[in-house]
């Protein structure tokens, strides 16, 4: 199903690309031969019309890209992001200077043939106004050196910016970063929540236009995946709970409560699966073979132990634990006694 959906927009894109390119070539030809009167007589104005066309094409591209981002699978490295990077970006956005609308910074991580893994980031102070942008490059270099001391395997793989659009300044900043990294990726995090969601997107730049005549830079989107270490996942799970409480706080609960909640979750999942199976058996829902295969896997994974064996194993385990607890208590009592005797 996804394949069909891809073909249509890809064709639209190609068509638009061809159309715009042809128009640009036509204008270039026209300008060189002087056959068709350009709207303004001065030669310098031709560049303006070129510029207009380029900005029109780039904005058109951007619109199309935004439209296609969700459904298009793109050729290019897959971007794997760790949640710590996103949290860092959001935090630096919250701490931005007065009057700054967006924050930019460097992304650090590792690359391999098909994917780019983003594991760290730091923000870089910059000033942005209507017609110019200034980035503190010294600062960026310094911070990178400091970070390298801690984790020598991380390299600069791109940069991030908060905000929804890709502006012309982004192109300039991207150029700077392409000097630091071979093929930098650009990450945008929409902290202004324009579409009621924090859109996290990644782009890589590629050349477009007529080679030799007018070239431009196009940002092609990449698929973004979230990767977690195991412990990271547990940490994120804990953080999710702050969403529930009104004061956005969450204490670290005791072990027993956590085990109870985990058991509760598994029970919920089991009831969902059971109700689904009942629906299929009674004919309400169509049986799906792939789901059926998963269910087979699930049932086969339960190890074949008889009830008595399982009970005896569990009991011996509990006995071990109880003994260890007893010994630990004994040690504690011993130490307390010792303390008292010494002080006497």
């Amino acid at each position: 199903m996804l394949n069909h959906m891809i073909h249509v927009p890809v064709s639209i894109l190609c068509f638009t690309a061809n159309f715009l390119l042809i128009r640009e070539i036509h204008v270039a030809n026209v300008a060189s031969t002087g056959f068709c009167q350009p709207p303004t007589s001065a030669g310098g104005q031709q560049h303006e019309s070129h510029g207009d066309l380029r900005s029109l094409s780039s904005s058109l591209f951007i619109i199309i890209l935004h439209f296609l981002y969700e459904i298009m699978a793109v050729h290019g490295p897959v971007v794997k992001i760790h949640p710590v990077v996103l949290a860092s970006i959001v935090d630096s956005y919250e701490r931005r200077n007065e009057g700054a609308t967006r924050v930019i910074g460097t992304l650090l991580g590792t690359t391999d043939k098909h994917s780019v893994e983003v594991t760290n980031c730091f923000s870089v102070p910059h000033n942005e106004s209507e017609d110019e942008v200034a980035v503190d490059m010294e600062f960026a270099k310094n911070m990178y050196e400091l970070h390298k001391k801690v984790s020598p395997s991380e390299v600069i793989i791109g940069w991030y910016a908060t905000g929804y659009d890709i502006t012309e300044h982004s192109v300039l900043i991207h150029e700077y970063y392409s000097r630091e990294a071979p093929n930098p990726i650009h990450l945008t995090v929409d902290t202004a929540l324009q579409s009621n969601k924090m859109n996290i997107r990644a782009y890589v730049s590629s050349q477009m236009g007529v080679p030799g005549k007018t070239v431009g830079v196009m940002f092609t989107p990449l698929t973004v995946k979230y990767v977690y270490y195991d412990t990271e996942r547990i940490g994120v799970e804990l953080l999710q709970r702050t969403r529930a409480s009104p004061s956005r706080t969450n204490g670290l609960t005791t072990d027993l409560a956590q085990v109870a909640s985990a058991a509760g979750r598994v029970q919920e999942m089991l009831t969902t699966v059971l109700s689904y199976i009942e629906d299929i058996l009674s004919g309400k829902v169509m049986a799906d073979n792939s789901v059926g295969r998963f269910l087979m896997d699930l049932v086969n994974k339960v190890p074949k132990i008889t009830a008595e064996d399982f009970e005896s194993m569990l009991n011996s385990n509990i006995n071990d634990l109880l003994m260890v607890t007893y010994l630990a208590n004994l040690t504690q009592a011993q130490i307390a006694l010792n303390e008292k005797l010494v002080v006497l």
Partner: protein
Amino acid sequence: MCFGPFPLHQTMASRKESAASGSSPLETPVKQIQIDGLVVLKIIKHYQEEGQGSEVVQGVLLGLVVEDSLEITNCFPFPQHTEDDVDFDEVQYQMEMMRSLRHVNIDHLHVGWYQSTHYGSFVSRALLDSQFSYQHAIEESVVLIYDPIKTAQGSLCLKAYRLTPKLMEICKEKDFSPEGLKKACIGFEIMFEEVPIVIKNSHLINVLLLDLQEKSTVADKHELLNLSSSNHLEKSLQLLMDRVDDMNQDIGKYNTYCRNLSKQQQQKQQYLQRRQQENTQRQSRGEPPLPEEDISKMFKPPQAPPRMDTLLIAGQVTCQSVIFMGRSLF
């Protein structure tokens, strides 16, 4: 146990000289700690990436103090202490990092440090020294102990500790002999105090978390329900036994010291008695009495072993056994 002492006392000393310490001592000590979700993620990531080889990763906590609670808003890791990197200046690294972070409006007040631990064994001389120098310079600082192995078992294990005021006094005196400790009347239970932790997230981060939950396809693994924890149990028990052995040795040393001391007292008494007897004999014979000799020079008292290590070991054993009981059924 920790490898490599944390050279923070140098850093703290230089900081005190350079920056005017404007922090007035609080009437009430820190009652609660509020940590940003970002800090938690950063600590986890730091251990995961850099801590697999050696046992300990360390870093600095940044934040601010709000009335009686301590807010930790950011942190940065410290590079591993390698022996062959002699010219690496830790103080300079710290200064540069803090200066850079100040540019991007991150709180640059040092409020503590964090350390990862291996199966709960973190109570050591190095930790004590570092925490003492931190607390001496900044009243409210804490040390966050992150236990990655217990976290991998299903629940985030992050604890915050401070030194009690009594222990601070003793460390200031640097008097670790048995008499000193007896005077201060300190036991291992009142060495460290644990401060409750609360995790706080801003609204934007909550939005981000919501997004992540919708988009991420990582399945829940439910390590909490894992019944086979015997590996961890074995390891913890082994470490506990090692600590008890250490304790034993230490107690043996103290016992020998006590015995030596009492033997010496006896010898002193005997000598004095003999002296007196001789003196009376001489007086009866009309000879001048022997001069009084300096007894203390003859009988030098044996060296009293420092008791601080004993306390530390005792504290460590307690910690480990507490971990057993907390972890026992899971």
